[in-house]
């Protein structure tokens, strides 16, 4: 469901130069003794989503705002595309980086189209190019341009406003997006949808994204890499979500991950990554006695009933086979078919829903590929090297 590119992308990035680098960056606010960000070194690879996550007040927003120089560093350097931008024109720099904030901050006296057009207009794009771009961005963020183009922000729901916020940030096709808790003020269901849509968008756009959140679940979901920060923006651990969840660096990270860390790994693995199992396969044509024998010989409580085109229809157990009714009427139907791209988390919830403890996996055309069982998930979880994680 959320094909965020991970492994191969990161390996590439190791050899290419980072898109953005912070070098020894320190920020001390005037009138405050302690720096909010202290001696931070951070490389952000081209095309990745780097999530900054940490407790409130640890300096995430400050770090993000140092990148587009909404605030000036007290010392250190900011490198963007290999160029030292620490002393360049900040407004020019900001037009090259989309910036999305939790409160969105749409201009209330401007229409949606005018809001999205702010940066293209500053860059003196021709009118028709701006108009086309606005419509394209509205489409891209799932808003019908004909409906929303001329509306004012007050007519939008929170989720819609944030879509426009993202569209506006993408206005002049920046390579970089800086997002400060963009979905933080949105109800859980809308947030879930926005996250998924955003990941889908990103799989096409391949922007370089720095994403701030205080929510570790969101970090795991959105991040190609996660930087877990402690006070003064000190990096406690910087790695892929898998590596952090399975191998937290220290007690602070363990604590921050919370007790659900192992379950969270389910959201990271997909059915295509695991070995599917194969309970007996039967069709309406299979003789009852034959089917019963197959089932008895296997370790599985159910056989899978397939139709003529090998689509899975139902889970069939011994009792179904013994009764005289037709198989597909009194067995456990398979309402949801999973695909290899789905996460193990989704597989688990399907299993719990159907109470068969099994979920059928099909290919794109709906043909049966194999089965994922609750036992295989349990084995996977306990086999993992989880030393350090509090269990």
């Amino acid at each position: 469901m959320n094909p965020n590119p991970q492994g191969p992308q990161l390996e590439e990035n190791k050899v290419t130069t980072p898109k953005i680098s912070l070098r020894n960056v320190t920020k001390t606010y005037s009138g405050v003794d302690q720096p909010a960000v202290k001696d931070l070194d951070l490389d952000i690879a081209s095309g990745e989503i780097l999530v900054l996550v940490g407790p409130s007040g640890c300096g995430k927003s400050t770090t993000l705002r140092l990148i587009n120089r909404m605030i000036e560093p007290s010392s250190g350097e900011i490198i963007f595309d290999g160029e030292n931008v620490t002393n360049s024109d900040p407004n020019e720099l900001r037009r090259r980086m989309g910036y999305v904030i939790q409160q969105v901050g749409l201009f209330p006296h401007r229409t949606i189209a005018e809001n999205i057009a702010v940066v293209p207009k500053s860059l003196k794009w021709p009118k028709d190019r701006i108009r086309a771009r606005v419509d394209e961005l509205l489409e891209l963020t799932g808003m019908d341009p004909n409906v929303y183009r001329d509306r004012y922000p007050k007519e939008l729901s929170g989720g819609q406003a944030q879509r426009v916020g993202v569209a506006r940030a993408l206005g002049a096709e920046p390579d970089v997006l800086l997002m400060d808790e963009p979905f933080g003020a949105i109800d859980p269901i809308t947030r879930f949808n926005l996250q998924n849509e955003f990941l889908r968008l990103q799989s096409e756009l391949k922007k370089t994204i720095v994403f701030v959140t205080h929510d570790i679940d969101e970090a795991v979901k959105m991040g190609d890499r996660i930087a877990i920060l402690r006070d003064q923006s000190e990096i406690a651990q910087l790695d892929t979500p898998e590596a952090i969840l399975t191998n937290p660096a220290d007690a602070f990270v363990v604590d921050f991950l919370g007790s659900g860390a192992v379950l969270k790994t389910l959201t990271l693995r997909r059915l295509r990554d695991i070995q599917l199992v194969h309970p007996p396969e039967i069709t309406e044509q299979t003789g009852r006695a034959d089917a019963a024998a197959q089932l008895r010989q296997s370790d599985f409580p159910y056989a899978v009933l397939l139709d003529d085109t090998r689509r899975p229809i139902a889970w069939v157990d011994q009792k179904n086979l013994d009764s005289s009714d037709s198989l597909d009427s009194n067995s456990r139907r398979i309402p949801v078919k999973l695909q290899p791209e789905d996460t193990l988390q989704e597989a688990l919830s399907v299993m719990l829903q159907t109470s068969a403890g099994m979920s059928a996996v099909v290919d794109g055309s709906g043909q049966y590929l194999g089965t994922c069982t609750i036992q295989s998930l349990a084995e996977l979880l306990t086999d993992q090297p989880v030393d350090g994680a509090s269990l």
Partner: protein
Amino acid sequence: MSTTNVVDNPETLPARRNQSVSQLDLIVIPVFFVLLAILLTVVWIYSDFDGTTTSILEPDRLWTQAQEQITVALWSTVLVIVLAIPLGILVTREGAPRLKNNLVTVLGLGQALPAYGLLVLFFVAFGQGTLTVVLALAAFALLPVLRNTIVGLEQVDKSVIEAGKGMGLNGFQRLRKIELPLAVPVIMGGIRTATIINVGMATLAYLIGGGGLGITIAAGLKLNRPVTILVGALLVALIALAFDFIGGLAQRYLRPKGLS
């Protein structure tokens, strides 16, 4: 203690009119205008005019005085706008926060002076004439516009300004494209207040040779002719209502679309 009160009062009582009130204004003001006009007509027709009254209420004279009243009120309002709005903008810029409260304090003290006293002060400084009156009235009516400019700019949602900054708008662009348009309704409220003050206070202009309907009212007081006092006061009120109606229209049509 008393000085902090002077600061607090104007601060806590911003002469802000929200939209629903201002829309109601556009109905209520004309209604009052018509009622007062009827009252004026009734007084004019049914009062017994003796010779003195007739000469005080000579229509040509009244017309001249009304023009003077309007001229003084108009110019002092223009002067207030030209002074107070830039000043309000200046003191709300980053890096000038301290000035703001001091300014409001000083002007608050100025407004606490009796208007008469202020006029005398300006007379001593600048001598007789319309210009002195205009200056004095402007000084007196500065505070509401300044205060509303400050309040209006400061009530703009910080996240909107932040977003503008994040899109590379510089300080001037943020002021012109975001802060001022969003402050317009509040600033207009201050201007309307100033206008009313100016129309009313212009009645005192006659004291230092600035003319106006104050002449008629003062003559009525001196010669004990209550009808002329009433006619003068009603004319002042009608001018004030007319100004406020224009202000109400401006407040409505200058208000940016899209604001709730």
